[in-house]
């Protein structure tokens, strides 16, 4: 575990996730990129926040991009090593999971509330959801029997 200054990009979606970071100062933006939405910042991590959970769960690949948006200092932890320690010592693993789960739950709750588009007007869709819905509609909106010919009952 060594103090580390985050590069402009500290994680890239799809790459191996063997580390996680605890931000000590500055700010890290968690980003997602999609064809309809472009790049969107879906969360930020400030001092005291943890960046990266993917080291805990197979296949240990980053799911989002993380980018320092201002001069940021963080402590990098060797997730791969910690995983091994947890496997060897389940008590340590359980205590760690309890801590991690609390943070994950608060992040999940916050994400769910933001999906409600609380500050939008009635009938609007969260900007986080609309690109996904657009893509989903394009995929699924075709009539089920498209291309089929009507058959007269015999």
């Amino acid at each position: 575990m060594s103090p580390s200054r985050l590069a402009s990009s500290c994680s890239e979606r799809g790459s191996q996730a063997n580390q996680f970071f605890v931000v000590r100062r500055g700010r890290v933006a968690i980003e997602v990129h999609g064809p309809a939405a472009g790049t969107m910042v879906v969360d930020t991590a400030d001092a005291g926040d943890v960046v990266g959970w993917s080291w805990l769960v197979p296949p240990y690949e980053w799911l989002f991009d993380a980018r320092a948006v201002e001069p940021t200092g963080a402590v990098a932890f060797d997730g791969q090593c910690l995983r091994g320690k947890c496997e060897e010592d389940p008590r340590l693993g359980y205590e760690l999971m309890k801590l991690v789960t609390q943070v994950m739950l608060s992040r999940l709750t916050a994400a769910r509330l933001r999906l409600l588009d609380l500050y939008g007007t009635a009938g609007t869709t969260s900007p986080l959801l609309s690109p996904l819905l657009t893509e989903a509609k394009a995929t699924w909106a075709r009539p089920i029997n498209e291309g089929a010919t009507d058959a007269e009952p015999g």
Partner: protein
Amino acid sequence: MQSLAEPHTVNPVGAMVPRPFRLADRRQDTADTFTIMLEPTDGVPLEFIPGQFTMLSAFGVGEVPISVSSSAHVAGPLQHTIRDVGAVTHALANTSVGDVVGVRGPYGTGWEVTDGAGGDVVLVAGGIGLAPLRPAVLEVLTHRERYGRVVLLYGTRSPEDLLFADELQSWANQEIEVLVTVDYGTPSWFGRVGLVTTLITRAGFAPRSSLALVCGPEVMMRFTAAALIKRGVRPDKVRVSLERNMRCGVGLCGHCQYRELFVCVDGPVLPFARVADLLGVREL
């Protein structure tokens, strides 16, 4: 506070007559939100306390309850910050300088910010909920020396939806800790992204001596109040502003009834402890 068991003593006839106000100026705050500045045609200013609302009339279209967003202490036009979402607000959005609108009120309870004197004040706004809180912020700034630390936590949808963006910076320069977060950002936004409740643990205030004023969507207020109480703010020191279908403004018509409460007279500002159970009830 009054309730159904205590008949309201407002003179309903006088309270139902709108006063004509002329539009002195208009400002477009965001794509769908604007502020109108109104001057009374009879020259008599409308007195109100921070947190109260008025019934605004677009003549020939209808009336709508809108919280006052200007200072209660500084002389000047009466301001309302409005989101263009329905027929009446759309008509108000299309008014021009010189047009006349009707104003009834003010109605309801206020934030009673002075209760926070000697301690810290935490103001938490969600979306357009910053508009009803603005008079409270301005009241604190008028008597800044009476309060300890003052914190404004503001969450909104996107950077483009930030209300009073210039004032936020000005308030920060006047010893108010202003923390802003948005629900989603673009790569050019270097501020915070996340729920407003996440700011509560970051803000610098002493919870046991704090008065907390919360305004925003009900779900946001429920989670915010829970987070404030979890941090240590006393439940009786958390106040929320409810939004209901106010019509008469004097507790007679019942449109804004919220179980035993008439929001137009018992609210809109209420202690969270009084409505905590109600906020979780579906379809109430």
